[in-house]
Structure formats: structure tokens, C-alpha cells
């Protein structure tokens, strides 16, 4: 039971008065944006700097956690279940109040921005679960990705279809009817439609068959080649680290190991405790 009295529904699930489908499960982070400060000095393109924070009034889940990524790079976060990987992503995206630490993007301090405004600033995010609009068609999903754009989106859309050809065939089908791998492609496509300056992916390969996984990783590398920095969480740590330029191992909300993907893969300690041997 949450302490918030407004959230006590006494277990009611009467469909004739309330609907639960698609309700927000996010904790409200920042509701209203504060100011953006330019950053003095040199810093990576996107960095979550010594972030500490947790959900609502709950305990800290992140403890001085730092994550950074530069253009053209792929940064991968791995770690055990519940380590705070998703939480770190949310913190970077502003869906969680960081109690201390900052988030910097492209030379600006965006710690005080709401998630909507971060989208406008050029951050794209693909959540771990329910990351597509199931009742909208594939094309509409992509359009929604480009919601904040006012320019012509048809070019980008063509690029996406080029990247994920299967989606072009299914453009008028409801996204909810697609298979898991295809959904994942829609999700990534949706995020790319924003023409983000940085792309964040939370377990993009979860529940995806190995072939599709390879395919997805290929695409992700391709996207990264276009110069977009990519920050992702992966449970398929081995494959992910192989393509990663930078790897972070989180344990209980702290940076446990940091290094290039190759370094981490080679580190026996890391292999033993996190890569299954």
C-alpha cells in the first residue's frame, strides 16, 4: 500500500467505472521544468553525474552513480536484477528526482528539466516494457515518435523503414498484433523518429529471439555510426558488451566496474559475478 491516500482504491477493479489500461506507472518526476544552465568546462555529451535518488519518498536506490556517453559511442549498463539499471536510466531521463548529482546534455545542465522538455532537447528513450502504442498502427506509432517535430517527417520515416524493412510491410497493422521482435523494432523506430541527439534503450533485446537480437544489435551499431550516442541497459550482457565502447556494471545502485566493453569482458571478476561465468 502506498502512503498516498489518493491512491487507495481498496482493491476495486470494477470495469464499469474505472479503466486501468495504459495508466501511468511512473512516479511523477519533475512536473515543471526549471532553468537550464550552461556548463563550464569540458564534459561528455550526455552524463548523469554522481546521481543519488529514489522513488517518491522511498530510500535511495542510486548512490552516486555516474553514467556518460559520447557521440558515436555505445555505452552499456549491466548488473544484477534490481541493481538500479532502469532506475539510472529514468534518472537520466528525468522520470525520477535525483536528490543530488546532475544530468548534463550537450554542454547544458538539464537536471531541472521535465521529461517532456528533455525529449524536446533531443533525448529519445525506449522503456523496458510497454514501449509501443498497441492500439495504434505501426505508422501511427512512428508518427507519435515524431510528435514534437514540426518539420517534414516523411524522410525520417523512410529511413526507419529502410532500417527495419519488416515495419514497412506492416505499416497499417496495429502494433499490438506484432511479434515481440517486431514490437521491439517499432519501439526503437519510434524513438528514432524524434531524430534524437542521444538514444536510451532499456533492455531492447528482452524477450527477443537470438536472431532478432543479432539483427537489433546490428541496427543499433548502425544507428551509432550515424553519430548518435546510445546508452542502453542489457541483460544479454555478453553480446552487449561485445559491441559496447563503454560498459558500466551497477551493483546496488553504485558503479561497481567501469571500462570499455572489451575490458569488462576480460575482467575475470566481472565475468564471474555478472556474466554467468
Amino acid at each position, binding site marked *: 500500500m502506498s502512503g498516498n491516500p489518493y491512491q487507495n482504491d481498496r482493491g476495486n477493479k470494477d470495469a464499469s467505472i474505472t479503466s486501468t489500461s495504459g495508466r501511468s506507472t511512473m512516479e511523477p518526476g519533475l512536473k515543471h521544468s526549471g532553468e537550464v544552465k550552461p556548463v563550464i568546462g569540458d564534459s561528455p555529451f550526455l552524463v548523469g553525474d554522481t546521481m543519488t535518488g529514489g522513488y517518491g519518498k522511498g530510500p535511495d536506490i542510486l548512490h552516486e552513480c555516474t553514467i556518460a556517453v559520447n557521440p558515436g559511442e555505445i555505452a552499456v549498463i549491466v548488473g544484477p536484477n534490481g541493481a538500479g539499471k532502469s532506475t539510472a536510466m529514468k534518472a537520466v531521463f528525468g522520470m525520477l528526482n535525483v536528490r543530488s548529482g546532475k544530468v548534463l546534455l550537450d554542454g547544458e545542465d538539464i537536471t531541472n528539466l521535465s521529461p517532456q522538455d528533455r525529449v524536446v532537447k533531443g533525448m529519445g528513450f525506449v522503456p523496458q516494457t510497454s514501449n509501443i502504442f498497441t492500439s495504434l498502427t505501426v505508422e501511427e506509432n512512428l508518427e507519435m515518435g515524431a510528435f514534437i517535430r514540426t518539420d517534414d517527417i516523411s524522410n525520417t520515416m523512410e529511413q526507419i523503414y529502410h532500417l527495419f524493412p519488416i515495419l514497412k510491410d506492416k505499416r497499417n497493422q496495429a502494433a499490438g498484433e506484432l*511479434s515481440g521482435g517486431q514490437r521491439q523494432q517499432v519501439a526503437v523506430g519510434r524513438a528514432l523518429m524524434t531524430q534524437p541527439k542521444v538514444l536510451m534503450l532499456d533492455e531492447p533485446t528482452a524477450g527477443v529471439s537470438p536472431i532478432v537480437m543479432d539483427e537489433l544489435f546490428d541496427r543499433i551499431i548502425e544507428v551509432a555510426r550515424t553519430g548518435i550516442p546510445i546508452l542502453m541497459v542489457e541483460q544479454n550482457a555478453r553480446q552487449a558488451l561485445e559491441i559496447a565502447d563503454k560498459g558500466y556494471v551497477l551493483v546496488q545502485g553504485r558503479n561497481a566496474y567501469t571500462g570499455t566493453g572489451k575490458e569488462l569482458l576480460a575482467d575475470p571478476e566481472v565475468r564471474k559475478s555478472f556474466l554467468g561465468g
Partner: protein
Amino acid sequence: MIVVEDVHKHFGGFHAVDGATLEIAKGSITGLIGPNGAGKTTLFNVIAGVLPPTSGRVKMDGEDITGLPPHTLFHKGLLRTFQIAHEFSSMTCRENLMMVPGGQSGETLWNTWFGRKRIADEERALRAKADEVMEFLTIEHISDLKAGQISGGQKKLLELGRTMMVDAKIVFLDEVGAGVNRTLLYTIADAIKRLNEERGYTFVVIEHDMEFIGRLCDPVICMAEGKVLAQGTLDEIKANEQVIEAYLGTGLKNKDKLEAGA
């Protein structure tokens, strides 16, 4: 003990379980592994009566139990835990445990008015039992906290504790290990083993921790894409090419490491 015959479970067009057939022997501790989304939890839910199967049968001791509601299965001795802890959040941990046993006389309204003496006696016994279970799980210090306020790992333990409040025949454990401290996890493994040996419980365990599986499980079943991919002893499974491809990871190197760890 449990026989699953060609069970399918579809969500809309998505085939979460796609023709699973398997058998769980009485007195065994069966491990169920497989990649995320393989349909393990869904299969659990079908067996435990939470979800009706799209097609197929489930039998327990020769009796067809397909589609029986969970509360009926509970009384037949089939218990389960949840991958995402399902605690009763506004109740204390002790109450979480005390509510489990069926057939409490205090659950009949009439007795709450006119049989208060009997209820009080029963409650005392239940309380003692709950405290014992919590002590076993090393969570006695949180017995009076609301279950909504305890940590994820503690919730998992509480979940396990509930299955220890009654005499079960078969217990399905869905990732008890996730989020649980390793040392404690191996204590739990010992407890499971003891329950299995001393009380004859049958266990089915979903777990991603191969070490845990290695300690406990004799037959191991690997699922992928809604089907049973392979079945056998742990060593057989580890040697199975398909399993390596779908679950354990590719490459011989990987396999070597695994064996070294076990």
C-alpha cells in the same frame, strides 16, 4: 505427479506457451530454466489455475486439474510463489503468514461472534507457527512491519514463508532468488532440500542462477519460445547445443566457464 500435456496459451495472437509437454516426478526438485519470455511464468500460471489454457490438459496425481481455480488447487496441496512478489501490503508480515492456512474457524463469520474462544486458541498456535517460519527465514525482526514497507528481497522471503505455513504436496517457486542475498539464497536452497527430504514436498523451481539450480535440481527442463527445448540432468542440459544457443550463451568458452563455476 504433475503431467502437462500439450498446453498452449495464447494472448491475442501471441503464443506465450506453445505446446509444452512435460512431467514432474513425485519427490523431485525440478528446475525450469529458459530465456526471458520463454513462457515459464505463464506455464506456472496455467498449472496453478491463474490462467485458463487455450488448449491442453494438466493432471495432478492422475486427476485432471485443468482450469481449476487456484484456491481449489491450494487445498489439493499445490502452492506457488510469484515472480513479482504478491505481498498483502497493508498487513503486517506476521499477518501475511497467519492468513495462509485454510479452514481456520475464524474465517467463518458466525464464529467471529460466537466462537471467540476457539479462535483465540487457534490464533495463538498460528502465531507461534508464523514466528517460527520467520525465524527460519531470518526475518523475525520485521514481523510487525507492514509488508508494503519491506525490501524486495524480504518480500521474496515472505512469499516463500507463506508456502511453509501449510503442508504442501507440490510447491512452484518462481524466481525466489532474484533480489535475494546469495548467502541467504543458499540457505533457502538447503531449506528446500530439507522440506523435500523430510516432508516429501515436490518442488518446481524457476531460477536464472545456475549455481542455485546446480545445488538443488535434479531434472532440469529448459523452455524456449513456449516449448520445452530440452529435459534431463543438469549436465545433459548444459551440454545441449540448443540450450546453449537459446539460453546459456554461444561458444564453447562459455560452456567451460560454466562448468568451472559449478
